[in-house]
């Protein structure tokens, strides 16, 4: 697959969606989404630990709904973080995607 030569129409589908927002909003997105993501992931592990009593219970004894909730919370945290990465401040872009800087080692 050689997409480095024509990157005008081909990568419109492959490239991840980017939304440009004002700088202040970018800070809001970064700070709050990171906080939510951390809270969800850490909380998810705590819930999962509670459900399995720190993985010491047998498979049949564990609290299945609570365990699923824990895993779901970890996934939700990851999702929030991943979703937040589509927002970018003005003038900010991934250098490797810039058309003026080819990624051929220089």
């Amino acid at each position, binding site marked *: 697959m050689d997409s480095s030569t024509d990157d005008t129409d081909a990568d419109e589908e492959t490239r991840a969606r980017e939304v440009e927002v*004002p700088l202040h909003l970018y800070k809001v997105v970064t700070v709050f989404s990171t906080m939510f993501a951390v809270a969800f992931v850490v909380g998810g592990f705590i819930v999962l630990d509670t459900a399995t009593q720190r993985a010491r219970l047998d498979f049949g004894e564990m609290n299945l709904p609570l365990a699923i909730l824990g895993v779901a919370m970890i996934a939700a945290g990851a999702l929030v973080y991943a979703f937040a990465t589509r927002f970018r401040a003005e003038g900010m872009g991934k250098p490797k995607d810039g058309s003026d800087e080819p990624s051929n080692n220089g």
Partner: protein
Amino acid sequence: MSLERKDEYDHGEWMREKNLTPVETTFLTVLIWMDKRFRIVDYLEILETLYYRVNMQMPKSHTEQYNLDNKFWYWYPLYALGSFSTIAYVVAALSGALLGFYYAPATTGDPTTAYNQLAFIMTELNFGFMLRSIHRWSAQVMVAAVFLHMLRVYFTGAYKEPRELNWIIGIILISLTMVFGYTGYLLPWDQLAFWAGQIGVEMSLSIPLAGEWVAQLLFGGFSLGQATLQRMYIIHVFLLPFVVTTLIAVHIGIVWIQGIAEPH
């Protein structure tokens, strides 16, 4: 009503002119709602301003030199890992200093004095369980944060010229962090600690030529005993704190002088 043009805080206006999906609109609305009530970003911006006020960098970074306003990389979450490691180190140092009042590195008795003191801290001492947990968790967090910090530095190319020296110091620091972890791991002197120590002795002995000398120096002999625990204790609470604190100070000082590296 101001005559100045509408600034970027007028969220409703520009959000309408963007082509946002419903999920994105909801996501942004929720975060803006949070931001209006919990002004965390404002406080972080004050810190950012303070950083520039006290900052006397020698070679200014490209964006600072040409006064470009896109200094957004200071807001990348992964750029907080160095501070995070430092905070974990300070917490571990404070809790460790308090633990030092109750721990004794002695292998006498059965179970040993060291282990008895550990049991005392965990079961009888007021707030002892909490104190040791804080120490252990901050140690784990520090190892993880230091490792992730190194990944961040590597993948953003922050180790490149003129920051090679700080990268080397960082490698020394991550190694010493692991020595910190290992020596602390042996201090409980339970089965886990003892056999981890045995592995350490055998790893030292496997070094060509210098192996026996290293085992003598670090573990006080070829089999584990009082000398081993004593050495682990002194390395953990005396030798490493001085060396690592000094190196961290130099490490952060160089970052202060050179400025934070921009992603390449």
